[in-house]
């Protein structure tokens, strides 16, 4: 019979070892590239749909949207692949601006929580949000999307821009459950304080930075859809 199992088998030449690995790596590379090329457009389409779904969720009246990117106090038309702070403007059937969707992110309990939120530039209200990414504790941090008391904060959360257009009149702040007094305060969920605080922080940060820019460029956003159609 052949060699017993406990005996060390003869060492094959290095060429054989290298060629084996090369062949296997080539097969593997080929498979990965084939599937990557095949799924790439589908994944891109899925991502576009996911973004669109989130935008239309926070701006329920919108039927179409345009993407802009923030460049030193200016908004320039862009597409979803542009790197930078993206701003989505939603338009209704008659191409009228119905709201703006903005990204916000902050450290939550476990990892960064990312949101897309709807902003009405004319009334200065934040009117809702959609969670894009969250790994918060199920049953606690995840309540931000289900708790009716918490969602009531976002009927019209005050995020008005100050007259100097340098920030918000009132900083958005999360307060302890049951102590909300002003329209710019967020009533926290008891038991999910850290996630509630994260939402307040991220909306304040995004609001202070982006809402003045939006106010400055509001006329551009309002007319962009009609102009893009005329072109």
């Amino acid at each position: 019979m052949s060699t017993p199992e406990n005996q060390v088998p003869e060492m094959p030449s290095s060429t054989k070892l290298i060629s084996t690995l090369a062949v296997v790596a080539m097969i593997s590379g080929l498979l990965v590239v084939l599937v990557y090329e095949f799924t790439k457009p589908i994944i891109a389409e899925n991502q576009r749909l996911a973004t669109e779904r989130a935008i239309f969720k926070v701006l329920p009246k919108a039927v179409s949207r345009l993407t802009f990117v923030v460049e030193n106090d200016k908004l320039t038309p862009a597409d979803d692949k542009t790197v930078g702070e993206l701003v989505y403007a939603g338009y209704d059937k008659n191409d009228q601006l119905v709201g703006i969707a903005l990204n916000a992110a902050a450290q939550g309990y476990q990892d960064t929580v990312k949101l897309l939120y709807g902003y009405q530039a004319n009334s200065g209200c934040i009117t809702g949000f959609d969670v894009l990414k969250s790994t918060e504790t199920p049953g606690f941090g995840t309540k931000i999307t289900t708790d009716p008391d918490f969602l009531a904060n976002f009927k019209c959360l005050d995020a008005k821009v100050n007259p100097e257009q340098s920030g918000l009149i009132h900083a958005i702040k999360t307060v302890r459950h049951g102590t909300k007094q002003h329209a710019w305060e967020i009533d926290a969920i008891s038991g999910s304080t850290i996630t509630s605080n994260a939402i307040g922080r991220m909306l304040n940060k995004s609001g202070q930075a982006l809402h003045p820019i939006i106010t400055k460029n509001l006329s551009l956003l309002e007319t962009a859809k009609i102009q893009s159609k005329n072109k």
Partner: protein
Amino acid sequence: MTQATKKETPLTLDVFTAGIWKENPVFVMMLGLCPVLAVTNSVLNSLAMGIASIFVLVCSNALVSALRNFIPKQVRITTYIIIIATFVTLVDYIIQAVSLDLYNKLGAFIQLIVVNCLILGRAEAYASKNSFTKSVVSALGMGLGFTLALVMLGGVRELLGAGQLLGYQVFSTQFEPWVVMILPPGGFIVLGSWLLLINYIQQRKTGQIIAADATAHCTVKP
């Protein structure tokens, strides 16, 4: 000669069913427990993880078995890892193409299939020594056994932790969900309970056989 005859054992139904019950990867062999505990907070996640694992297990075992006479012993682990990593990357792209929601829910655990010891273990212990057909059949059985175990855990955890099954409300809204069940400790509790139940059943089975044997011996004697 004995070694040769061992290799030649025919393909039987046992090769397939071993992975489902007798050598169940989770409940008997206790392999790949990391994803078992981590992703089983709902039936859908469990099922997706199970299907992804079946795909990687079957494809990698097929390729390892097909190349088994070609791969030198010294580089076999490296080769297996490359093969497994390839199929995991494919699954990663495919799940993103099927559903981004699902992909976000499963998080890093899709990529971590690479280090699931069940898959490397089967490549090393079975596929590298058996014919192509047998390896594929065995991998399919093991994969189904793994999926079954994931779904058994996911079902209990989703039912108790959210009062739902596959997203449909089962219990009335009066039911207060046991949040602990969808948190990591719930994974340990439910896995422990299933192990207790399954070991109890198996022990009773063997107990009955021993008892039956004993009575048989007794009746033979005067």
